[in-house]
């Protein structure tokens, strides 16, 4: 199959590629959002810490 034929998706390119592209975008966003949430939680936890002494 030629590259052009592959991209044309038998005439369904306008539906197939947006479906795959959207899925990819949402999955990448989920990875990013989870990492950011973890990073922020770490920073917030670090900010909370100095108020308390261990065992206090």
């Amino acid at each position, binding site marked *: *199959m030629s590259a052009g034929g*592959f991209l044309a*998706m*038998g*005439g*369904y390119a306008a*539906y*197939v590629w*947006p*479906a*795959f592209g*959207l*899925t990819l975008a*949402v*999955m990448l*966003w*989920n*990875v990013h*959002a*989870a*990492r950011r*949430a*973890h990073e*922020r*939680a*770490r920073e*917030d*936890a*670090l900010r*909370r*810490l100095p108020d*308390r*002494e*261990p*065992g*206090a």
Partner: protein
Amino acid sequence: MDWTWFHKLASPPHFYRIAGRLAPGLGWPALVLILAGLYGGLVFAPADFQQGDGFRILYVHAPSAWLSMFIYAMMAIAAGIGLIWRMKLAHAVAIAAAPIGAWFTFLALATGSLWGKPMWGTWWVWDARLTSELILLFLYLGFLALHASIDDTQRADRAAAVLALVGIVNLPIIHYSVYWWNTLHQGSTITKLGRPSITLDMLWPLLVMLVGFTLFFGAVLTRRVQAEVLRRERNAAWLRAELAR
């Protein structure tokens, strides 16, 4: 039976450490499987004799739809465990799973819409399968909104858990909607017991994608649960030790 492993796992600090190792262990295999599934679905599998290359949307639509329901079931079970046994970690799992589930429900709806337009001639139809999937999205958003609207974490956990448990009734409705009602949506491809209505060349990329998406969810979930554990933990000694790493 010795249950100490379970109590250990349920302790947030212990879980936090395990999750740190688990996330890449799930994420990398997920990436490999999804790449293999993409190749299989877009290049290797033959075009469908009725739907041509348009059927390839199946390879992102079906795994998204599967996750939309799997995540809800898991979220509701976790919320139920948190409600009944007052296990803090279970509530953290439920609230961490909800946004991921909402995203995959959105994907199932959006990719389904992109598939429906060329095959049915419409982006949307108020049919049983589509409507019940849309309700699933509202259940996720309602769960998140209810949780966010209550300041006290423990009360928020319990209120949202009740909503999640009530919403479980929607899952069999989604699954059986294509059999119970006249619907435009096609029946299942692989859940007919033992006899998939699909050729092996089309089937393996789908199975690979289903496993890949599920592992992907596991990886993203463990990161989010880690964040949730940090947010909720009030044990300064443990936090200090953990964050010093």
